[in-house]
């Protein structure tokens, strides 16, 4: 951690994030208002109007929270079905030069649930499973829509907070269409071309066969004439190079905090993330919209300091995560160092040379703070404490900047809880920005907090004691338990990163993992969104009460500290026992040189 280069990169990252937060936040104010004006109006407005006309949508008709939720569920259901059927029958569809077969029902279900919920957990290896058509249509469509839907829900909640004695919280269709057309698509075109300049591919060619510089021999298993398995020598003198429309998918994968990679190794693959520069801008694009949404919040509730207070709490938690993860990875693994690995190099297992220790630790923290889930290094091979950071980040409920939209609405739940706790401490009815927080509101908040926690822990417990659960593991000892805990934390948090040694597709075709993870993702997404929209509805209907001397200020350092405390307290109380059985005990075992 005494490398000045790393500190400079960290400072540049923070500086760039600060720089884009306000302008992008102001832009969000315009596009999340159905009448908002933007520079793109002359080109995009006609397309937007045409879309509404073809779909029979009236963008001016505001919806109640029930109406909003209903439209959202209908749209998500249709999208999930659309993806499921494309994946099942990709062998009958065009753009499949490698002739890849259709997916099994449970893998198609898992993948459809994964992309619909903005999780983008990958049960499959992209380059050997998905046709170009599946990548480009079945998966990419959700990269856009799940991001737009999330931002829409956040906007609906903010409207609920900023309105009073109102019955409606916006129009689902207008939010989804406008976010997609005005925000995501234009940025992606530019971003994708930048990524191509760094070396990400964008073509429709079949895979290329290269004649490698030095042929070599490997041993492969064969069945001989009498039916016995034998090892035979095989000369390898070619390398098959993956091709396809990658850049267009990677741009939205990052900007929409989706994280589902084109290839198995995700952003560690030199095609998906060729240079440190592409790495920097990919990390920046993950945090861009979640950070800007806090500015949008401040602007909409006419209290910019509140917006910055929420940002400040997220930022503090982010910085602490980076420092812990970085320190652990830079210190490396004492077991390997005893074998002769240079101590100064840190833990390089599963990391790429071009990124090194710092950029791998920073990426891991960013991708799990936000519910992105792209990885540029294999989290499974991180040191115990280095891997604890991504795990805990997800278990806070993905609120440290968080996913696009989902980060803000998740954090606002903690804001309401913090206000409630502050109210209890001073013995007053809690108020949030001029609204009384009452029993019904707190029931919704507790539902949003407890349901994901119970789902993560419940599924983890079930998998840990089941044969199907243990069958998927790649590691033994406490690390195996961490793989299970990480999988369900990632699925419920709609993150999608993994301790990727875990396989959900065992050789015997047991569908348990795919189905359990698919259900966890759906619960983590939709059973969160429904109570949040209900909260938006009830807040919108409340009367505004003028602030008094006893009103708790939702700005300034006191509030930031209280908010951070609330997030940490809920996360720690819920998950500390499970974490103690996984990464924490593994840390001590590693220090004492134990192996499994």
């Amino acid at each position, binding site marked *: 951690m005494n490398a000045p280069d790393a500190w400079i990169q960290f400072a540049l990252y923070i500086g760039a994030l600060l720089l884009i937060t306000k302008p992008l936040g102001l832009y969000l104010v315009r596009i999340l208002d159905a009448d908002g004006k933007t520079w793109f109006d002359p080109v995009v407005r006609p397309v937007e109007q045409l879309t509404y006309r073809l779909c029979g949508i009236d963008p001016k008709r505001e919806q109640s929270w029930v109406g909003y939720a209903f439209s959202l569920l209908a749209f998500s259901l249709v999208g999930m079905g659309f993806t499921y059927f494309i994946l099942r029958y990709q062998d009958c569809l065009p753009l499949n030069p490698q002739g890849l077969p259709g997916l099994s029902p449970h893998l198609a279900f898992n993948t459809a649930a994964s992309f619909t919920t903005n999780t983008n957990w990958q049960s499959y290896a992209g380059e050997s499973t998905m046709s170009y058509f599946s990548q480009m*249509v079945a998966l990419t469509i959700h990269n856009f829509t799940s991001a737009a839907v999330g931002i829409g829900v956040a906007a609906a909640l903010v409207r609920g907070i900023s309105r009073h004695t109102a019955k409606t919280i916006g129009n689902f269709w207008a939010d989804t269409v406008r976010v997609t057309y005005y925000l995501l698509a234009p940025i992606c075109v530019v971003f994708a071309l930048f990524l191509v*300049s760094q070396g*990400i591919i964008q073509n429709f060619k079949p895979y290329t066969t290269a004649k490698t510089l030095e042929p070599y021999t490997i041993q492969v298993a064969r069945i001989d004439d009498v039916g016995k398995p034998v090892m035979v020598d095989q000369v390898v003198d070619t390398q098959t190079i993956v091709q396809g429309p990658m850049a267009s998918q990677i741009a939205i994968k990052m900007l929409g905090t989706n994280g589902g990679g084109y290839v198995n190794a995700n952003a560690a693959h030199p095609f998906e993330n060729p240079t440190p520069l592409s790495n920097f801008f990919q990390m920046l694009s993950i945090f861009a919209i979640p950070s800007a949404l806090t500015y949008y919040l401040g602007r909409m509730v006419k209290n910019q300091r509140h917006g910055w207070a929420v940002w400040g709490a997220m930022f503090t938690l982010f910085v602490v995560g980076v420092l812990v993860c970085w320190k652990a990875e830079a210190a490396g693994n004492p077991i390997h160092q005893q074998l002769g690995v*240079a101590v100064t190099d840190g833990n390089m297992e599963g990391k790429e040379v071009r990124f090194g220790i710092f950029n791998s630790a920073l990426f891991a923290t960013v991708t799990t703070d936000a519910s992105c889930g792209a990885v540029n290094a294999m989290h499974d091979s991180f040191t115990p404490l280095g891997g604890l950071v991504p795990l805990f980040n997800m278990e806070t409920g993905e609120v440290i900047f968080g996913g696009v939209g989902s980060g803000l609405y998740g954090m606002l739940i903690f804001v309401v809880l913090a206000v409630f706790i502050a109210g209890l401490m001073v013995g007053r009815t809690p108020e949030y920005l001029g609204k009384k927080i009452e029993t019904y509101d707190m029931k919704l908040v507790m539902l949003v907090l407890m349901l994901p926690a119970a789902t993560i822990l419940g599924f983890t417990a079930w998998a840990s004691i089941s044969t199907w659960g243990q069958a998927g593991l790649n590691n033994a000892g406490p690390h195996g338990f961490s793989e299970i805990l990480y999988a369900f934390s990632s699925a419920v948090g709609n993150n999608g990163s993994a301790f990727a040694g875990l396989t959900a597709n065992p050789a015997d075709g047991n569908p348990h993992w795919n189905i359990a993870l698919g259900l966890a993702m759906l619960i983590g997404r939709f059973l969160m969104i429904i109570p949040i929209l209900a909260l938006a509805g009830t807040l919108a209907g409340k009367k505004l009460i003028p602030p008094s001397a006893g009103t708790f200020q939702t700005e300034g350092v006191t509030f930031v500290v209280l908010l951070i405390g609330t997030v940490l307290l809920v996360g720690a109380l819920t998950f500390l026992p499970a974490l103690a059985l996984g990464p924490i005990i593994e840390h001590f075992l590693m220090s004492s040189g134990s192996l499994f």
Partner: protein
Amino acid sequence: MKTLWLELKSSVLLTLIFAVLLCGAYPLVVWAGAQFILPAQANGSLLVEKDGTVRGSRLLAQNFTSDKYFQSRPSAAGSGYDATASSGTNLGPTSQKLSDSINAAVAVYRQANNLSADTPVPADAVTRSGSGLDPHISEANAQLQAPRVATARNLALAKVKEMIKTATDERDWKVFGEPRVNVLLLNVALDELSPAK
């Protein structure tokens, strides 16, 4: 019931419109732009010989075993360096398997490069990358391999070190990432200088 029907109808239509615009027009616009302005990158940064033979991609590691070539990092992609099966080992810090493989790799590396038993080995030389296709090695790793390659090719050590320097990428914009040596480009340059027999 009527509302449900209308919502589903809007959903289906919007999904289809999005599919045309975001899954058709958008990738095609990027494809056209990329193929027009940046064809080399858009097609995989391939190394092509004069007769059209593709020798690999400058972004993807290949396997090198003999002394006359600089060796890439060990690979966990498929059976090794399989560019259709990118992967790391995903073995954790207390894995016996990982510890055994690093132990063996350290011994092999020291022997191949004629290093004493207490020389610290660069971490990238004995660990497997996240993708299994990491095209780079660290400068320290390249320097330790240089004498072996120079002897095998009958070249002056200074000449080999100079070529390492040419194949080294500095930090992007002088700040981002780490300095690194591209193994494939370095080996291609060596072959051009003194063709492999």
